[in-house]
């Protein structure tokens, strides 16, 4: 078997609030092979978001190493890490987090501003991914003119427009009704099967977990073996 694209080894995360130390993750080790669609489940407060943030390089572990596609991101400096994120990670949030002042098109274009693509190439990329998520006709709409499901599809388009190494999603269907949630899950599944994207998705929704190849459970900072 090829080397796992995500290698989390002996990672510990402790949050300090005032003088209180809150251990969130204890000695977590998890490998995600390329092309995997992994669902992370577990009760509220078990550390799912924390683990996802560590994998996405927006937070740092207290100890242990996180190697993504050969890069140990726990050793990268702030600016190098930012650059790394722009190339390798597509993040999908529970609450979409689109910029309200930008249109759907502009929101999707945002990550491309950090690349050296030409204007024309940028437009082609944006139009292509908006087409994938089925929103070609909503490019000029602002987030507040879109439904929750549509907003999340724009957010997914934004996450994949740079063709990242991994896609991380934190409860992408958590704020959606059943129909919209199904659309999003279908989309995630397509990204995995059609576009061969490696996906790590945190979810509370058992139906969401069904779409994944693999489900891991977190409980009080420990990863349970299945």
């Amino acid at each position, binding site marked *: 078997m090829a080397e796992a694209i995500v290698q989390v080894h002996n990672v510990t995360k402790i949050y300090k609030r005032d003088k209180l130390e809150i251990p969130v993750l204890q000695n977590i080790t998890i490998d995600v092979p390329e092309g995997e669609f992994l669902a992370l489940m577990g009760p509220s407060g078990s550390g799912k978001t924390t683990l996802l943030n560590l994998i*996405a390089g*927006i937070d740092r572990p207290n100890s242990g190493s996180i190697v993504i596609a050969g890069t140990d991101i726990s050793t990268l400096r702030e600016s190098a890490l*930012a650059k790394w*994120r722009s190339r390798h990670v597509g993040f999908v*949030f529970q609450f979409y987090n689109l*910029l309200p002042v*930008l249109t759907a098109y502009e929101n999707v274009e945002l*990550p491309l501003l*950090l690349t050296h693509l030409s204007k024309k190439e940028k437009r082609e990329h944006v139009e292509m991914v908006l087409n994938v998520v089925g929103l070609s006709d909503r490019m000029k709409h602002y987030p507040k003119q879109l439904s929750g499901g549509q907003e999340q599809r724009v957010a997914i388009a934004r996450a994949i427009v740079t063709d990242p190494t991994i896609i991380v999603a934190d409860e992408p269907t958590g704020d959606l009704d059943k129909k919209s949630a199904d659309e999003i899950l279908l989309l995630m599944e397509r990204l995995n099967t059609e576009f061969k994207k490696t996906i790590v998705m945190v979810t509370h929704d058992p139906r969401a977990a069904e779409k994944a190849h693999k489900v891991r459970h977190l409980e009080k900072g420990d990863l349970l073996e299945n």
Partner: protein
Amino acid sequence: MHVLKLVTKNLLRHKLRTFLTILGLAFAVFAFGFLRTIVTAWYYGVEASSTSRLITRHAVSFIYPLPLSYRDQIEKIPGITSVSYAYWFQGVYKDNSFDNFFPRFAIDAETFLEIYPEYVVPYEQLEIFKKERNSCVVGKKIMEKYGWKLGDVIPIEGDIFPGRWDFVIRGVYQGRDKTADETQMFFQWSYLEEQLKQRTPYRSGQVGWYAIKIANANDAAAISENVDALFINSSAKTKTETEKAFQQSFVSLSSAILTSLEVISYVIIGIILLVLANTIIMSARERIREYAVLKTLGFTSGHIIGLVAGESLIIAAIGGCLGIAFTFPMAAAVAASFPTMFPVFSVDLSTIVLAMTFSLLVGVLAAIFPAVRAARIKIVDGLRQIG
């Protein structure tokens, strides 16, 4: 799309707030520019004055006259090119109002305007002026203000020199450069002398002050000493100094007011700094979550600082430009309403530069704190922010 577009879109987010902040800045910059224009107008007289001209006056006070006989003695001092003299006449034109005040003085028709080449009188007019006893030359500004024509008679009610005095306008002078005062009236000292001999003989044979042209400005101090030394044992001792120092002694009378105006102008800048800082802090706080999202996408702390500072700088620049733009018509209106109060009242280039510099400085300063805070916030904390 460019990152700059995000800045402008953010600016238009709370249109009223942005508009009011820009307006506040514009007013502040306007007030700053206007106050500075008053201050510079005040100092113009000093700037226009020359360092190669000396003024000799009575040592006790400017209001005491000096004997005309001093002239020949002063002329003999080496380094002096020519000596002229004048006498402050004052008097009342129309009424005692401030609006109808303009400087009036008697000058030696032959020499005075040679020493003051900044007052330019057409040659033919000057020749007539020199020949006709009760003629006068007036500045272009008051000529226009009162709608006088050449040949008009200006009646003046004397106060220092009582009685009625009529002067015929035979010449109009123009300032050679924009600092020259175009609001004065000059008439012949010999006419004053002739009249005084009839009206009050004991007041004849006197001048108000001597204007001395020297060959080399560097000799000013030495020559001044030599002049004063001549009359050290006379009953009317003299005080000689450069015209610049002389003018400054007038300005210093009002220097307390000028200093307050300057202080106020800086206080205004300080206040507007707080106003802009408040707006930028509010905006940045509202957007903490968005900044965290941008960082997640790979934007750096530098980008975030750019977004916050860009917004601040654009507001400051627009406000600054508007404020400066307001200053011009206001200055023109003041210059038109009180043409004689300030000989020169126009917005100085240094005022524009200073106003713009302060605007941009305010833009930078207002952004420092919120920009650094927005850039420093950890992504995970920013994402947890509700808003």
